[in-house]
């Protein structure tokens, strides 16, 4: 085969030495730094992407947390407002009740007083009527009660006397 007779061993030896050297040198000075740089960069990008993803998730979590807190705050406000309203109602109702009871008491005491005053007045009237009656009777007894005319005139004068009093 012509191919094999054409093989030149000198070239083969030199070429093998040169190529081996090139392999070692390129690996040490070119491929290793390049591949390391590329690898590091890829790792960096991957890390950055992952970090971004986590941050995004965290932000979403924070946001949902915020929402929840807001909701809670709103609910709390509602509860507070409601209880305040209730307290107010209660206070107003209580005040009303107290006021009513007080007024009732005042009215009742007034009524009582009126009643007692009335009673006192009536008693006074009764005693005065009795005293007058006795006075009149005294006077009648003292006067001559012979005629009718005279009787009538006496009564009239007596009444007038009373009226004057």
């Amino acid at each position, binding site marked *: 085969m012509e191919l094999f007779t054409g093989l030149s061993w000198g070239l083969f030896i030199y*070429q093998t030495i040169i190529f081996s050297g090139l392999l070692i040198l390129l690996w040490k000075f070119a491929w290793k730094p390049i591949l390391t740089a590329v690898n590091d960069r890829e790792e960096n990008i991957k890390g950055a992407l992952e970090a971004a993803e986590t941050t995004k998730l965290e932000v979403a979590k924070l946001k949902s947390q915020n929402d929840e807190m807001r909701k809670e705050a709103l609910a709390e406000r509602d509860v507070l407002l409601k209880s305040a309203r209730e307290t107010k109602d209660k206070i107003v109702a209580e005040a009303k009740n107290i006021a009513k009871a007080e007024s009732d008491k005042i009215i009742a005491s007034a009524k009582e007083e009126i009643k007692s005053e009335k009673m006192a007045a009536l008693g006074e009237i009764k005693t005065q009527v009795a005293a007058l009656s006795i006075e009149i009777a005294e006077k009648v007894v003292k006067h001559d009660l012979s005629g009718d005319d005279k009787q009538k005139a006496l009564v009239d004068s007596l009444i007038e006397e009373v009226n004057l009093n």
Partner: protein
Amino acid sequence: MKVKYYKNLLTIVLLFVASFSFANTEEHTSESDGVTLENASLSEKKAEYDKIKKHHLLDDHSFTIVDWVKVPLPVILIDEGVHVFMSSAFEPHGHGIAESGGKFYGLDHETGKVMRMDNHDHHVAVSAPFDLSITKNVVIILLMAVLMFFFFKKIATSYTSNGMPTKAGKFIEPIVLYVRDDIAIPNIGEKHYKKYMWFLLTIFFFIWALNLLGMTPLGVSVTNNFTFTFGMALFTFFITLFTANKNYWMHIFWMPGVPVPMKIILAPIELLGMVIKPFSLMIRLYANMTAGHMVVMGLIGLIFFFNNWFATGAFSALTLVLSLLELLVAALQAYIFTMLSAIYFGMAVTEDH
């Protein structure tokens, strides 16, 4: 659409021109009385062309840049002692005889190899000494290695602190990543690919660069030299063998999962396969590059054979088209060599499944 139109037009024009030029030559030879003269000049041309073609494809003891600039290179022979002299001793035209240490050396005109000549009759070759000369190809390989070393070293140092490539690195890095992500990782696997990257990257760029250099008119085609592809394939072969795991050897000598007689039959076949794989690498690169050069040079030769302006136009255009194709082949062959090497490495480290 427009491109296609122009393409069709170009094809028609080329065909027309080509047929015209053929017709033209026929006319010449049949018409004239000086047929013998024509033939003589034609065969003379052919001989000269053959010489150039051979010269272009083969290794050489001197570096011919153009016809009149010939750089002599050292010839180193081991023939009962070491003989060193410059290749200029073979001048003129390789017919000269060099004398070293009482022995006479000349070039074999068929193969271009250095032969020891008979002491009395300097035209009779006696034996072939062991040739350790710094030939044209050695110089080219060495120059390319040095060039590549400085080029890639510069790229490696051009990386910024955050790992971004600058300048030429921007162009080279995608190729490096391609070799890693589309050649090494899919064929060898995530786990083992790292220990082959140095070889795959180097051989890819080395073959590619030498292929491209071979396309220049300097006549420095190394990759179509059989010795060169043999050496490269041998690297792949030995790296495969030295990194192979138990599984690989099991599959060769004692194929698991088949009956014992089959194992015995398969062993030599697998053993043969182990050798044929890198052998195919060697032949593929050699044959592809040689074929490409042959065709391109054949087309260029036709320009001078026909020697009229139709042929000049037509074959120049064809040569251009073919050169573009060769440009693709240069990268493709480097890729295929790397790819197949990666596949063989992948076989060597495959896990049991």
